[in-house]
């Protein structure tokens, strides 16, 4: 139980996907301008991450059993791409309201490195099924936390007087740097609480 809590804290704060692992930077910079788009995108990411982990875990077990680990990258990216397409089709047909809210973000998720990243990290760290699911969920929630926080920062940024050549992305990156710096303060929190994975 302890290890699950540690994974949650790590995914949310100390090993935040965006701010300390640099996974999913493109949507982080692209879709974090407004709160509602930030929430929509990150909800879609959380859902896809969890489903992708649930699907790829048994596939990986099979690959390992057949001695075909070298196919992991190819198989995982294909599974994720197919999965995203299926989720989109399913939502379009059966859950119209959710499709309207998340639909536009789904195609962008295939090439989101956070999704492939979490699946590969689960394999590399040798997590079991429960730990993998927790890691994906925590990673997704961490992504959401970063996106939501950062959309607030960006709103403030809009009304700032920024030097000409820093306008736009450069100042956004520097704001991201400061947001990331604030997360450095949490380093060691997991060990400090006597938790380990």
């Amino acid at each position: 139980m302890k290890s699950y809590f540690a994974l949650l804290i790590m995914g949310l704060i100390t090993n935040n996907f965006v701010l300390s692992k640099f996974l999913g930077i493109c949507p982080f910079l692209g879709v974090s301008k407004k709160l509602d788009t930030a929430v929509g995108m990150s909800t879609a990411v959380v859902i896809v991450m969890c489903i992708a982990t649930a699907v790829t875990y048994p596939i990986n077990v099979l690959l390992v059993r057949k001695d075909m680990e070298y196919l992991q990258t190819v198989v995982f990216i294909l599974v994720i791409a197919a999965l995203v397409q299926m989720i989109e089709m399913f939502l379009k047909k059966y859950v119209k309201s959710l499709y309207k809210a998340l639909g536009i973000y789904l195609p962008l998720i295939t090439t989101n490195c956070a999704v492939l990243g979490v699946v590969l990290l689960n394999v590399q760290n040798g997590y079991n099924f429960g730990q993998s699911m927790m890691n994906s969920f925590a990673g997704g929630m961490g992504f959401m936390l970063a996106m939501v926080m950062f959309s607030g920062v960006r709103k403030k940024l809009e009304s700032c007087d920024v030097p000409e050549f820093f306008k736009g992305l450069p100042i956004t990156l520097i704001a991201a740097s400061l947001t990331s710096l604030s997360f450095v303060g949490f380093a060691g929190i997991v060990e400090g609480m006597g938790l380990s994975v």
Partner: protein
Amino acid sequence: MAEKKKINYGKEFSKGILKQNPVLRLVLGTCPTLAVTTSVSNAIGMGIAATIVLVCSNIVISALRKVIPDKVRIPAYIVIIAAFVSMIQMLVKAYIPALNKALGVYLPLIVVNCIILGRAEAFASKNPVLASACDGLGMGIGFLTTEFLMGTVREIIGAGTWFAGIQDLLVIFGNNPLGGWNGFDFTEGLAKTGLAPITLFILPCGGFFVFGVLMACANKLADKKHLPKAEKVGCASCPMAENCNIKSGGNCEKPAAAVKGEAE
């Protein structure tokens, strides 16, 4: 047949290095740029790996551009790219194990590096093989150069070294290829003057900061040549543009409201 457009190979090659630098101008491939540039050696390793994948996948995709059906081209591109990435991953694992360890999960993540899929979609799928290879090489070197710059700034300020661990990277050329030279070390000299490296720069926050400043510099240079500022716009570079139901000319923000407006 319509007359063939003359292709300037030199131009296809050189545009990726400065004018359309994938990282600083097109804002693609930001994740590896930030993640692996804690040292120059890692940055070079990543840059070379990505360049090889980019050139190979550009060549294959361009050669197959008339065979791949339009509707399934994105999955087809992904498979081709993933195959090359797996090959590189296995080679690196076998010959440069230290690099494999240093790059970790970011090595297989070259698959989703948007530079590669972006170039496949924007260039290789429309141009002949040789031009695509030049484009891939140029873009790859542009990526490598930016990685190198970021790595240099971050390693010197953050760790007080330069090219540290280059031996691990050159292990393929036999033992001790540089006569035992393993990078510059400024830490002792710095310590004499009472200074210490600013570790913050090799932490994630330093990555964002250096990238922001570099991009501002690139904007300044671009402005001198009257080029537009780097912005996260451009469905041209987005691999999902065709499947994407956001037809907004690159602003992935506006459509959310537009879609909602339609729904209401």
